[in-house]
């Protein structure tokens, strides 16, 4: 019986609080069509879009690297002129870091986090949609520079003075700076969403120490974004002010400091690589227990390690500047923190090793990618301390040795888990398993190709080949290894292609997955494959870290009320719970589909284009439209009273 103190009578279904699939369907389903395509706020649809679009940018960034590798396959080739090469290597970095890695890992997070914590959606569904549209808009914005052959060409790190208006007089660097400011809006919005969702929407009983490690990984990533991304945004704002408005921040002549750019960039840039790696480590921690048929050993250590990596990661940025002539005392301190940051990563590796040893590893494709990830991430993690040692870094920095290191930790440490995640979770998204045999083929092609491509780079770096060079001289003995790397790149690309074909093929022809093909332990498997729009019939009550292993009543048909399930009346609402212990606090109504995220993005795109073409009329009008869109977004629908 509802208790109301004055006011309107409760909607039907709310009387008892029980939910039925019919009621939930009625309140949650989105009618298919173009309108829904532009206005959806369903985290699962948005998560998949992030995945598809992010993987499209993987292909684009990958093609950029293949073309570069052709140019580098022999000394003194003229396949590419230096300007084109410089554009390619700059965009390869920007694309892979900002348009592939973070969006794809956010995509997994978007899809999985509400499911894993037993919620019906993210905390801010419209903000979620907005984050995707901005990501797409920023990607388009960056690549329209390609149409005028003016892709950013000063490197993904864009050092001043090379990137100032004297030495980069075209719009290339403006596309870079404005594009990054633009995409920063998406990353920030997404991170705020993740933090609030994870802290306030967990199913009752899912205290923080029962939360899946993958969710901890997304939380660590999101917190890192909040405190690291402003450094990049600021750097780019200052750069544009200097380039366009004649301000002085980085130019020595005007009393500025070129190193200010490097500090700001790397204060962002180093946490950035950890925020790419942290969710990926979370994917490993999701797959290993399942595929070893046992709970993770050292859960607490892994969680603390994830948080420690995020935290210590803010204290190491100067190690990218060891060769700039900074005072030795500061360098020494940073060298120490750079050595120490290895420890939490090591802790995670050893926890996984213990779990693998104690458990029964099942060598299906997701596990192969995780094993490959461990091997590659460890290799990268072993060249890392070499770079933390100042004199050794001063030899190998800016050489191919560093290129080897960061590709091992970023491709090995993030891309391999992403592919493991594809094989592991796409069956939940589509209801069909990917082909196992072709999955193994893809893995081996990728593993062999990757090592053939990147291992020799350690050697070439030691032999003196600098990075960011469009060619190299004959007679240095670098040709053979470079050719091997080029071949390896194509093998790796082929392996990636095999997975994509596998994915497309299996969407229609794969074996039906059922709700839990891997017999996993976390809540996303307590739904149908794919899940209903409303995710769970009843918000479950959680009593364990491995709910599906310890609570047999959990399954795709909802947890019964007797076991703790809460239907919330089957309405368009979700449960808000407390921060630490996840006790129920509020039944919050959720927003419906809305056109405003899309419209606001279009307005913002207009602002950024207006800035890059230097038309103040254009961007002012677009800004006004943006303000109107924000007003439309917040305008109450139907009710006058605040909800």
């Amino acid at each position: 019986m509802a208790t109301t103190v004055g006011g309107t009578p409760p909607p039907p279904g709310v009387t008892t609080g029980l939910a039925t699939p019919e009621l939930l369907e009625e309140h949650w389903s989105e009618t298919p069509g173009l309108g829904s395509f532009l206005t959806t706020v369903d985290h699962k649809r948005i998560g998949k879009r992030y995945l598809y679009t992010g993987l499209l940018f993987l292909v684009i960034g990958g093609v950029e690297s293949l073309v570069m590798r052709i140019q580098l396959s022999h000394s003194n080739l003229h396949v590419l002129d230096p300007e084109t090469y410089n554009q390619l290597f700059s965009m390869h970095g920007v694309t892979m870091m900002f348009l592939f890695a973070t969006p794809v890992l956010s995509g997994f997070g978007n899809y999985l986090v509400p499911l894993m914590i037993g919620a019906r959606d993210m905390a801010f569904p419209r903000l979620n949609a907005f984050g995707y549209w901005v990501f797409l808009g920023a990607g388009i914005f960056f690549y329209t520079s390609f149409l005028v052959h003016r892709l950013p060409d000063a490197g993904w790190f864009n050092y001043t003075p090379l990137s100032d208006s004297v030495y980069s007089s075209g719009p290339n660097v403006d596309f870079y700076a404005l594009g990054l400011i633009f995409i920063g809006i998406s990353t920030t919005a997404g991170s705020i969403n993740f933090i609030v969702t994870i802290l306030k929407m967990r199913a009752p009983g899912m205290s923080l120490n029962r939360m899946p490690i993958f969710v901890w990984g997304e939380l660590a990533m999101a917190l890192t974004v909040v405190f690291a991304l402003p450094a990049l945004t600021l750097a780019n704002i200052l750069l544009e002010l200097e380039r366009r408005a004649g301000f002085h921040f980085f130019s020595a002549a005007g009393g500025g400091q070129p190193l200010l750019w490097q500090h700001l960039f790397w204060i962002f840039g180093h946490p950035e690589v950890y925020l790419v790696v942290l969710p990926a480590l979370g994917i490993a921690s999701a797959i290993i227990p399942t595929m070893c048929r046992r709970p993770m050993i050292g859960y607490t250590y892994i969680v603390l390690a994830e948080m420690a990596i995020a935290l210590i990661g803010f204290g190491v940025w100067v190690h990218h500047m060891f060769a700039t002539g900074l005072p030795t005392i500061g360098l020494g301190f940073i060298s120490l923190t750079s050595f120490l940051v290895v420890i939490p990563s090591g802790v995670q590796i050893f926890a996984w090793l213990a779990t693998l040893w104690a458990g029964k590893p099942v060598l299906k494709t997701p596990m192969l990618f995780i094993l490959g990830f461990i091997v590659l991430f460890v290799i990268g993690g072993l060249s890392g301390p070499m770079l933390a040692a100042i004199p050794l870094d001063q030899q190998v920095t800016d050489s191919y040795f560093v290129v080897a290191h960061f590709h091992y930790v970023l491709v090995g440490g993030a891309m391999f888990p992403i592919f493991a995640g594809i094989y592991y979770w796409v069956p939940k998204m589509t209801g069909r398993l990917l082909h196992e045999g072709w999955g193994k083929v893809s893995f081996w092609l990728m593993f062999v190709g990757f090592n053939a491509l990147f291992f020799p780079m350690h050697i070439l770096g030691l032999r003196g080949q600098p990075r960011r060079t469009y060619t190299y001289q004959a007679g240095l003995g670098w040709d053979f290894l470079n050719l091997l790397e080029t071949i390896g790149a194509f093998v790796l690309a082929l392996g990636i292609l095999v997975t994509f074909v596998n994915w497309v093929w299996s969407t229609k022809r794969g074996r039906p997955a059922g709700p839990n093909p891997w017999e996993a332990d976390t809540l996303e498997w307590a739904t149908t494959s794919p899940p209903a729009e409303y995710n769970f019939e009843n918000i479950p009550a959680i009593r364990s870290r491995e709910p599906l292993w310890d609570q047999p009543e959990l399954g795709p048909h909802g947890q019964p009320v007797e076991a703790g399930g809460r239907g919330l009346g089957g309405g368009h609402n979700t449960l808000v719970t407390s921060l630490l212990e996840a006790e129920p606090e509020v039944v919050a109504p959720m927003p419906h589909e809305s056109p405003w995220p899309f419209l606001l993005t279009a307005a913002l795109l207009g602002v950024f284009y207006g800035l890059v073409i230097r038309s103040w009329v254009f961007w002012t009008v677009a800004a006004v439209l943006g303000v109107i869109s924000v007003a439309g977004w917040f305008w109450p629908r139907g009710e006058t009273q605040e909800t």
Partner: protein
Amino acid sequence: MEREREGKFPGVPTGRFPSGRGPIAAGARTLPAVAAALIVGACGGETSIVSPKGPAARSVTGLWWPMLATATAVFAFVAGMLLLAAARGRRKSDDDAKVTPRWGEPFIVVAGVGISGAILVGFFLFSLSRVQALTDAGRRPDVTIGVIGHDWWWEVRYPNGATSANEIHIPAGRKVRLNLDTDDVIHSFWVPSLGPKIDMIPGQHNSLWLEAARPGVYRGQCAEFCGLQHANMLIRVVADTPAGFDAWIAREAEPADAGAAGGRDLFEHQTCAGCHTVRGTQAQGKVGPDLTHFARRDTLGAGVKPRTDENLAHWIADPQSVKPGVTMPPITLPADQLDSLVAYLEGLR
């Protein structure tokens, strides 16, 4: 065993490889051979960090080899444990898998925090001692030479006032201090076989200890992305005997010989003089490299081509085809004038 073949996951195809013959095992067997071949390959090369030719570089390799050995050992341990875990898992039952061994968490702490921490802190302290040695050595130089980075060449200033470009002479066996500056963007001075690099940053005066143990030619390159021709901004360090060095820079400080009048006139009255200096003539341009003793250098264009008549003619006529993006414009001359200009330049010894 029937159950094993069917697989634990209903509906999921089984693996096809009995233990020991699987792809993982195959990879494990070939990996050491490949690794050995690659490691041996790293040692060669005239610009190799691990073939040090001077004390600074040697100081770094003294750190490198222990780190490599430790890294290899750690990797072997992790890879070994992974392979064994995969292999042992095949013989286990599901119930065995759920048993949590008591050594589990202590292992994480001891290996992950204790042993790793000790190794890391140990290497940190070891590396600090190397930093100290490198800094100290740079404080008492025998010779100080100034190098200024330009897009995409190196200006060299010797202690006796001589100005040169691209090829840097030093006395072997002596401590040389390079004072490093830049005229435009950030560059970085790196001769791998002689020691670590350091950046050249506008508004900042960095310095580097350069020392070659023996006479010879040592190759290097700019190591900070500086634009279109970063890849072709090469360094040649020529270490002479100390006596040879003194003689070399003495000659370098003198103005140029008169040389063939025809070629010299062309140089002074064509665009050459607007950018280049040849001391002793009217050409006093400061945009490009000083060419007073150009023909004593082995290469042109900051190392991009050997200095031959043909290469020089080609460079003058169309520098963009050799080093696209370089500041020098094409100089179109009739063939006989080009020849006499080349002859003049080749006479600048």
